């Protein structure tokens, strides 16, 4: 396989844009990514698009805004993990020489209100079980009992997230919150309060990738290399030692992170900056454990002690994450890649970790259907 580099990335601001079309939002993100990469649209040979709620053919509807060059536009869906799936597919195609230059796009306009994971009239809905944060809450309750964590530690994830979001001009929420405000917000599923839930968001993100051996002609100012990847769904563990659902399944994360680390030739100790799937506050705590960034049961304390802050030793969700940057489900993964790109190229401005010397970035993005792990190196 050839080395593949990310040449550029771009976002449409995350937030609520009821008056704006998907085409307009996607167009802006793609244009920003192309300009950032210095790659003209006519050089793009394929587009992989993560989107969930948009209708049939949405990928082409958006990508063809930039021009009608006849390229394949492949729509990929894995719920909240759609655009890291799209990224991985594009990466593997370029790495294997099917295409030289590819565009990865993610976009979504969400319905207002809490994300519904099950259909109306389904058993889970009628029984009140399909409450999105419930699976996180169930694990959080058990985690508190097992590891002596407190509701404050989960709330702290959101405090840190909003602090980072306030430094990100593309974030949905750019205002800090206090731990008292997080804890005092309405309880959704104990211990998770409203301010520990990712909002409904509209947004778009795009990334340009290229075979490293072909990237010279773009005179790219800078790039990062795709160093490792892993993807999979929930694996049955005999004797029903159920680890929970895929959305927060640290068992899956651990299994897949090992594969990604091995492919990248690194270990968790080499990671300088991480983006994880914090659809709800426990997500950050469980996932940094699953990724091996901290030991089992140490996640909550790591957050509480500030280790996942921008200036901490294991900075996580430096752009505000799903909780503050926002979570337009099809766009989230591509936005994670965008932030890692900014961090590894030293262009993250006030959010920059490790004085601009970050060398390894890690992404974990999950959705109904599986978990994606990606590793990047400067």
């Amino acid at each position, binding site marked *: 396989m050839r080395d593949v580099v990310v040449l550029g990335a771009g976002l449409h601001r995350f937030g609520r844009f009821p008056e704006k079309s998907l085409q307009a939002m996607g167009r802006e993100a793609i244009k920003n990514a192309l300009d950032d990469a210095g790659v003209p649209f006519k050089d793009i040979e394929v587009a992989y698009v993560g989107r969930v709620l948009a209708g049939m053919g949405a990928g082409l509807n958006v990508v063809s805004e930039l021009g009608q060059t006849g390229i394949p536009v492949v729509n990929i869906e894995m719920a909240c993990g759609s655009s890291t799936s799209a990224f991985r597919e594009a990466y593997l195609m370029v790495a294997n020489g099917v295409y030289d230059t590819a565009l990865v796009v993610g976009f979504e306009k969400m319905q207002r209100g809490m994300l519904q994971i099950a259909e109306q009239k389904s058993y889970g*809905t*009628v029984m*009140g079980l399909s409450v999105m944060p419930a699976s996180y*809450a*169930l694990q*959080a309750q058990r985690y508190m009992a097992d590891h002596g964590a407190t509701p404050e530690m989960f709330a702290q994830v959101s405090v840190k997230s909003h602090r980072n979001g306030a430094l990100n001009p593309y974030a949905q929420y750019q205002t800090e919150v206090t731990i008292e405000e997080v804890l005092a917000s309405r309880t*959704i*599923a*104990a211990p998770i309060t409203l301010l520990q839930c990712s909002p409904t968001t509209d947004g778009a993100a795009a990334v340009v990738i290229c075979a490293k051996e072909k990237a010279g002609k773009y005179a790219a100012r800078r790039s990062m290399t795709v160093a490792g990847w892993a993807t999979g769904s929930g694996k049955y563990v*005999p004797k029903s030692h159920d680890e929970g659902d895929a959305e927060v399944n640290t068992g899956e994360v651990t299994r897949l992170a090992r594969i990604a680390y091995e492919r990248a030739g690194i270990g968790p100790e080499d990671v300088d900056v991480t983006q994880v799937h914090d659809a709800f506050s426990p997500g950050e705590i469980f996932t940094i454990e699953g990724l091996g960034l901290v030991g089992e049961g140490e996640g909550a304390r790591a957050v509480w002690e500030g280790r996942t802050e921008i200036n901490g030793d294991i900075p996580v969700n430096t752009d505000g994450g799903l909780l503050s940057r926002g979570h337009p489900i099809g766009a989230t993964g591509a936005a994670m890649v965008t932030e890692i790109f900014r961090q590894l190229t030293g262009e993250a401005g006030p959010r920059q970790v490790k004085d601009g010397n970050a060398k390894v970035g890690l992404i974990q993005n999950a959705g109904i259907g599986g978990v994606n792990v990606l590793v990047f190196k400067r």
Partner: protein
Amino acid sequence: MSPTATSTQAPGRLVALAPGTFRIPERLGLPVHLLGARCRACGETFFPKRVFCANCSSDSLEEVEMPERGQVQTYTVVHQQLPGSAMVPPYAIVRIALPNGVAVQTVMVEGDLASLAIGDVVDLVAGRIMEDDAGNTLISYLARKAQTEKDEVRGA
């Protein structure tokens, strides 16, 4: 408010909200043995039933009854109304570890949410969820704290 398992107001025929998940008991409040499947090839047990084994993909599975008593592995109290749900907050979702290794997730019957704790022994009992258009009473399995002095469920 969680549903009750002892309501006397069950006007219509008892019908399972999720058909086939358990045998319909004579009346509400009685214990239900969930109907799962056991793989003849590898011995794993599943609830709900599967056509192919999750562990070994064999299609040779037999119906087995689950134990009706288990322990609360974890729980959460839901304060948000889920659109389309018959459950009115606050109510508790519990994950119950059954002695055969199967974990079952359901709602607690009406009771003291404040005293709910990991490790509690609970029984799965038939409870009323809602009426359907034909006037039947849709029921499902709910979790109820086991009675320490006298197990009313078993004694009924």
